[in-house]
């Protein structure tokens, strides 16, 4: 990845194209080349970035200056003034009213780049995952060496806390604090576990890390074990990830051979070894206590909490459970320091987040961007807009256990606190982008169908609640719903959240709550008019 200092975006919605956005883009390409700035500036055509009165818009980061309407003839002056001489090109800026409304997010972005920043994916796709030499060339195992020979556990906790690393599994718990809890817990035998049971539909960030850079997880687990005082670790990986399992097995063998696992690691007293435990296809086993039960050979059902795994985990011993992406951040933080890590992302959620983009965007795939980027930026810059230029309707975050983000929230910075304030959840990082052809009742029905099948059945609210919510939604989609169903749904959603034993039930009600909050009119149309506005639901009049 090139180190760029500035990012130039050109709007390319239909209005901009009509007014010559393509010519402006080509002129920019030419001029940037002319001034020999190619290596420090990235130029991107983005989709719809908002207001059309002044389009085509040219937006330049990190100053977050908006120029518009830009004509081909203005480009030379603009590049010379702004990009070459570094001052604002006078007279070309968009009128002030353009800064309000839809593109107000730009001012919040001032001083930062929404560019891809690879920390946890730094090596994935670069190195040969089967070669420990390749990993060592790319600074591998240096963080472990530093931790074991130069740092005590207290310093490691401090560094992680100062860096502000928060769990990337979805809940966002401060990692350093969690490690400290396990260290403080009494007992001599402790465990560390990497949760690689990535079963959220549409999420594949952990698989990519495990397949592309397996040694990073082994290194981070060894650091964690040293810090909390454990000598044994597990990687709980879902059964479907056969390739990732093969690569991890090979990586563990290599690490044992070279002495990064085993006794007297780096000539110290520290000993540590790892096991791989394959899951068997249950969604619930991604929940940390169900995962622990599963490793113990029992049925994967969540435990009652407290006590938390930090004091009573695997075999009733203090246990640290971290997500793959969280662990992948540990090495870079220890190598480069907390201050470096804080230079990415937002003050409350530093660092980067890996997102998987799927659904109705022109480009799908996986990106790692600083925390605090907005959904609109993700869709425009990385998704290259929505297919067939249809309007964006909603995004479903975090596989199933996330939230439904309506278009009105697409300018909210995506970090833990901003999302919590807006009443939605970041989840595991999947962004399912839906256009106007998606029916919210159908979407909620699909999600609830997933939850009712994956519910382990241990606690009643989740077992019965999901089934009942699914039935009500099915009736609404068949055109046989009643308005009283909406009250029932709201109550069910609330009960699921309040009364369920674990995260599965607690988040299962979120889609219902979100569609009733943001898309109530559309749901009511199914009931009052017996019409599905998008034409997705069958509306056959059958009642279950």
């Amino acid at each position, binding site marked *: *990845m090139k180190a760029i200092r500035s990012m130039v975006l050109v709007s390319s919605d239909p209005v901009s194209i009509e007014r010559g956005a393509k010519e402006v883009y080509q002129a920019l390409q030419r001029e940037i080349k002319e001034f020999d700035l190619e290596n420090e500036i990235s130029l991107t055509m983005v989709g719809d970035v908002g207001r059309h009165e002044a389009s085509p818009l040219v937006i330049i980061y990190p100053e977050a200056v908006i120029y518009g309407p830009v004509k081909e003839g203005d480009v030379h002056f603009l590049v010379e003034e702004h990009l070459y001489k570094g001052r604002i090109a006078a007279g070309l800026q968009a009128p002030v009213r353009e800064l309000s409304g839809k593109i107000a997010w730009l001012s919040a972005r001032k001083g930062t780049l929404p560019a891809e920043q690879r920390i946890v*994916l730094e090596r*994935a*796709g*670069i*190195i*040969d*995952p*089967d*070669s420990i*030499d*390749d990993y*060592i*060339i790319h600074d591998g*195992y*240096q963080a472990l*060496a*530093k931790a074991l*020979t130069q740092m005590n556990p207290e310093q490691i906790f401090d560094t992680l806390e100062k860096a502000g690393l928060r769990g990337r599994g979805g809940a966002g718990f401060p990692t350093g604090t969690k490690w400290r809890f396990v260290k403080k817990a009494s007992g001599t035998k402790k465990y560390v576990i990497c949760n690689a049971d990535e079963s959220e539909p549409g999420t*594949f960030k952990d*698989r*990519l890390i495990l*397949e*592309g*850079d397996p040694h990073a997880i082994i290194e981070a687990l060894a650091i964690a074990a040293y810090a909390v005082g454990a000598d044994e670790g597990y990687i709980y990986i879902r059964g479907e*990830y056969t*390739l*990732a399992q093969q690569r991890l097995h090979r990586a563990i063998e*290599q690490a044992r*051979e*070279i*002495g*990064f696992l085993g006794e*007297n690691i*780096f*000539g110290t007293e520290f000993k540590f070894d790892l096991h791989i435990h394959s899951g068997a296809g249950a969604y619930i086993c991604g929940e940390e206590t169900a995962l622990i039960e599963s490793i113990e050979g029992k049925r994967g059902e969540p435990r009652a909490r407290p006590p938390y795994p930090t004091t009573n985990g695997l075999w009733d011993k203090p246990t640290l459970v971290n997500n793959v992406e969280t662990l992948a951040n540990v090495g870079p933080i220890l190598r480069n320091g907390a201050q470096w890590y804080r230079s990415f992302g937002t003050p409350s959620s530093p660092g980067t987040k890996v997102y998987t983009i799927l659904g109705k965007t022109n*480009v*799908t*795939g*996986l*990106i*790692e961007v600083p925390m605090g980027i907005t959904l609109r930026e993700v869709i425009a810059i990385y998704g290259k807009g929505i297919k067939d230029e249809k309007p964006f309707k909603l995004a479903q975050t975090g596989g199933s256990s996330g939230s439904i983000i309506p278009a009105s929230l697409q300018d909210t910075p995506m970090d833990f606190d901003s999302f919590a304030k807006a009443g939605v959840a970041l989840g595991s990082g999947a962004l399912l982008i839906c256009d106007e052809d998606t029916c919210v009742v159908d979407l909620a029905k699909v999600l609830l169908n997933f939850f009712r099948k994956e519910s382990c059945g241990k606690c009643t609210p989740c077992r019965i609640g999901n089934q009942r919510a699914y039935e009500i939604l099915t009736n609404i989609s068949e055109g046989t719903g009643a308005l009283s169903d909406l009250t029932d749904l709201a109550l069910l959603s609330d009960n699921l959240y309040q009364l369920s034993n674990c995260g599965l039930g607690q988040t299962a009600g979120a889609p219902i709550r979100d569609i009733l909050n943001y898309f109530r009119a559309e749901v009511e149309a199914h009931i009052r008019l017996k019409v599905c506005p998008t034409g997705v639901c069958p509306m056959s009049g059958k009642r279950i």
Partner: protein
Amino acid sequence: MTTIKSLEDLKKAREEALRKRDAKVASGTAQVIVGMGTCGIAAGARDTMKAILDTIEKDGLNGILVTQTGCIGLCEKEPIVQVIIGDQPKVTYGKVDSEVAKKILKDHVINGKPVADHVIQM
């Protein structure tokens, strides 16, 4: 493989590995890297890999190092093949089926002319 017992050992191992790699680069060896994550394999990276290895064997080509790597996040463009010749910058190709792979070997690796149709601008 020798056991690493200290930070110095690790540094030595790193230099050793780097030297090995640089020796390959210096000798003008071409590196062909195939993206073999699950997404790549699902899109047909194994066939691509097989075609590359078959062509090298059939035509008796020398000095080509074929390695694998994980996914780089452009799952839509899989199978992805990256080509590095000597110290030239890396060229990344997308949607490389076995036919395209043969063409890349012939045109780019041997004759030094990148196959423009399949290059991904990074």
